[in-house]
């Protein structure tokens, strides 16, 4: 593939996008257990709160944040004539998402490790 920052952001966007779409349906399935009553809901919710899932949720957060921030970059490119700053925009997206992922992920990591 023709490797540029643009391609890299595109690849990440696609991968996170497909992953998030699949997750959305998983999420709906988990929450949907409320239709079978409160007990079934608590049961299924407990299943997806085992330690391994707590770590996976950090990856989920990372995917959501990257996809979202990258999307805002695309909106900026669409509405303003800024294609010449494409590289700076790409790095800005990387930095902003990294900061947000750290800010959001740290409490999650502590919770996953410590338990409360």
């Amino acid at each position, binding site marked *: 593939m023709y490797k540029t920052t643009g391609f890299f952001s595109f690849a990440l966007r696609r991968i996170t996008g*497909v992953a998030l779409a699949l997750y959305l349906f998983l999420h709906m399935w988990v929450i949907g257990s409320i239709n079978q009553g409160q007990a079934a809901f608590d049961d299924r919710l407990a299943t997806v709160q085992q330690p391994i899932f707590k770590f996976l949720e950090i990856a989920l957060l990372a995917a959501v944040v990257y996809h*979202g921030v990258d999307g805002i970059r695309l909106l900026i490119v669409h509405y303003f004539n800024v294609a010449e700053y494409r590289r700076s925009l790409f790095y800005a997206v990387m930095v902003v998402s990294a900061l947000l992922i750290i800010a959001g992920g740290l409490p999650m990591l502590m919770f996953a490790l410590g338990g409360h």
Partner: protein
Amino acid sequence: MQISHTRIFQLQRLSAIGLVIFLTTHMVVAHYPPGHLDFSRVIERMAYPLWKGIDILLLASALVHAVTGMYMVITDVEKVGRYRQVLGWASIILFTVAFIYGTITILAFRLPAETVNLIP
């Protein structure tokens, strides 16, 4: 009816903006600070009709965004091009079914009668 790419694009942009607003709200309110979740915690919020409304909007944005996104990803492949009309209709059906199911789920969060007095 032809599947219009201009419409897909507009739907995707609109739902993207919806997601930025509602998904951020959802993640901050429902999942922060991280803690153990069960029915009693979820119902604290879901007992309010306003939250049900916000969650239905979130559901709609997320589904529109996911379905249009998947459609674009799949039809980007040249060979799939000739099935795009079918895929378009499949997407619409998938959206409708998932939206109905999701809405039923959201509305199913009702307080059991005996715990009503827990809500201030």
